[in-house]
């Protein structure tokens, strides 16, 4: 090792040599590799968070840069607003429904893709497609598919004789929430699949073989080996997807704009309207801050309750 070091030294130009010296210093190296990431994180994540946190204590008209200190007034008004609580409830329904659907369907798809069958590659590509297509594009495709007059979904159901009249998936007060949950799951299910599939493939096949020879049926093998091995990743997946879906804005806004009759006005849309329709940035920031605190609390409870360190036991 030292010999090699010397050899490198001999070969390099003096400038390179001093560069080499500098880079060899542990803290400089750590700094150069880690700092950009931290800096970027601070710039992209921390600053807007701090901005929103600060803004929530001010009254800010969107059209003027002047800020007026109002203390907790924004929070008081928001917490007093029935619409906020209603939107929070809808966010919970949306996030809960989406996570349930995505985790179930995503795990099922992963289990399917973990087997060998003829059109595996095709199925995998089709499943991955919605995830790489931009949200806006996917949403517009979904809007066409669910259109009340010519949507392909209704057309197919109609031709199968399952429905008599076309169904306005995104326009019906009864179905809109279900429809946006389904659409968002259409896009994000593959995320669950990718992570679960990676875990599935890391389970040694001998575990299944040992269980099989021991007399375990396919069902028992799933319950006793697959599921316990998936607990760790499912824990993470539920957390991540839960947080992301709770904060989701774009796909819902494009699909329904929060309608019809506010049935899909989730908290993020409530905040958006507060900011850009009612031009009340301070109050919108208060909504964001409340959502942030709520998620923080929920995540803490989640961690405390499920003790991931116990669950993520991998040999």
């Amino acid at each position, binding site marked *: 090792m030292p010999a090699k070091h010397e050899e490198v030294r001999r070969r390099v130009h003096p400038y390179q040599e001093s560069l080499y010296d500098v880079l060899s210093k542990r803290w400089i190296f750590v700094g150069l590799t880690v700092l950009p990431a931290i800096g970027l994180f601070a710039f992209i994540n921390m600053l807007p968070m701090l901005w929103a946190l600060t803004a929530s204590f001010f009254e800010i008209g969107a059209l003027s840069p002047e800020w007026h200190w109002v203390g907790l007034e924004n929070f008081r008004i928001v917490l007093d607003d029935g619409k906020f609580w209603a939107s929070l409830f809808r966010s919970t329904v949306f996030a809960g429904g989406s996570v349930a659907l995505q985790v179930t369907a995503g795990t099922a798809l992963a289990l399917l893709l973990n087997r060998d069958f003829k059109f595996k590659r095709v199925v995998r590509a089709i499943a991955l497609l919605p995830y790489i297509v931009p949200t806006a594009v996917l949403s517009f495709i979904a809007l066409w598919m669910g259109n009340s007059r010519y949507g392909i979904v209704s057309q197919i159901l109609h031709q199968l004789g399952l429905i008599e009249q076309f169904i306005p998936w995104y326009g019906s007060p009864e179905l809109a929430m279900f429809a946006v949950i389904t659409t968002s799951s259409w896009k994000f299910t593959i995320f669950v699949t990718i992570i679960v599939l990676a875990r599935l493939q890391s389970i*040694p096949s*001998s*575990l299944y*073989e*040992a*269980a*099989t*020879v*021991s*007399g*375990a*049926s396919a069902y*028992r093998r799933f319950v*006793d*080996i697959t599921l*316990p*091995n998936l*607990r760790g990743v499912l824990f993470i997946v539920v957390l991540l997807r839960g947080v992301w879906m709770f904060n989701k804005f774009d796909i819902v806004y494009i699909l329904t704009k929060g309608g019809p009759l506010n049935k899909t006005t989730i908290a993020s849309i409530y905040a958006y309207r507060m900011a850009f329709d009612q031009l009340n940035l301070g109050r919108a920031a208060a909504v964001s801050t409340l959502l942030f605190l709520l998620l923080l609390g929920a995540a803490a409870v989640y961690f405390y309750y499920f003790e991931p360190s116990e669950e993520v*036991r*991998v*040999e």
Partner: protein
Amino acid sequence: MTVELTALTKSYDIPGGEEIAVNGIDLEVGEDEFVSLVGPSGCGKSTTLRCIAGLETPTSGEIRINGEDVTDTAPNKRGLAMMFQDIALYPHMTVWENIAYPLKVRGVSEDDRHEEATAAAEVMRIADLLDKYPGELSGGQRQRCALARTIVYDPKAFLMDEPLSDLDAKLKVAVRKEIQRVHDRVERPTIYVTHDQAEALSMSDRVAVMNDGELMGIATPDEHYNFPANKFIASFIGNPSMNFVTGQLLSSSDREERSSSGSRAKPGDGTITVEFHDNEIELGATVNEPRSETVEIGFRPEVVDLHADPDEGYFEGTLELIERIGDRRLATIQGPDGEIRAMVPDSYTASEGTQVSVSFDERDAHVFDDGTKNVVGRGRTEGAEITAESSS
């Protein structure tokens, strides 16, 4: 309880044809018999075992357990126990849950399961580890745990797929003993797959040697060692492995005079005369008729003698290497047909690079037909046999 294989064949479709992994194997493992499947990697021994377990579906042939045809029975309905090379303990279950798992799938109550698992763990001397996870165990403890899992219920047969190959030499010996202890205790047919011939020889009642999907022979360890049925077995069994020199067939007794004792040659059987390096030797004829003029004469390193006088041996060679093997030394000589290995006493003093003359005890020589590779003649060694143990 018995396990029987009849014409078992397994082939895989590969691009441009098919690959035969197991080619028409017949094997019968008797009640409480310990049979090893041994051979170089890729010889089909593991595939054979997995067919018995039901983890692979044979292309053709029949598998019977206790006389009952199980070829089409689902693996979880065959009532077997199996140990895997990577042990395959469930990492998310404690030791006792692992051990008791076969009982769980059989619907045994938790109390009974715990009791049985504790009993099995006591047999394997790991009762104090019941509440630990596999990740917290040492290699040997894991092996014991896996063994306990196989004896916790009453399987019809034990299947072991190279369970010791990941252990170090010392642990290997220890766990080997445990396996034999378990086998003696449960009295069930055990089929043990290994690539290590020494392991197979030391543990088994009989050893089935496989190569390229074919069964090369099945016999007791001593039989394989002393009377190898063909050149493959001769070279595979025994360490250091058998020496071979090329020779010419001079004469051979007629068919009816040949041995009545299979691949052995008893006094009174016919003879076969071969020539090599200007030496002519006469040996007993085995049941196999020579098919070609060229033969190979095999002799184990243990029966080789080295002489300083060139006239004392059959041929000469250069002493290339001398290394210590236990209480003796292994000499490697570069001879006219290639490398010759000889076990010499500790007192042997010739130095590397000197010319030596090689001789061997004809009574322990084997002649293999160069075409069929089957043994066609050997020394008439009834009585004084070299035991396999001395080779390991």
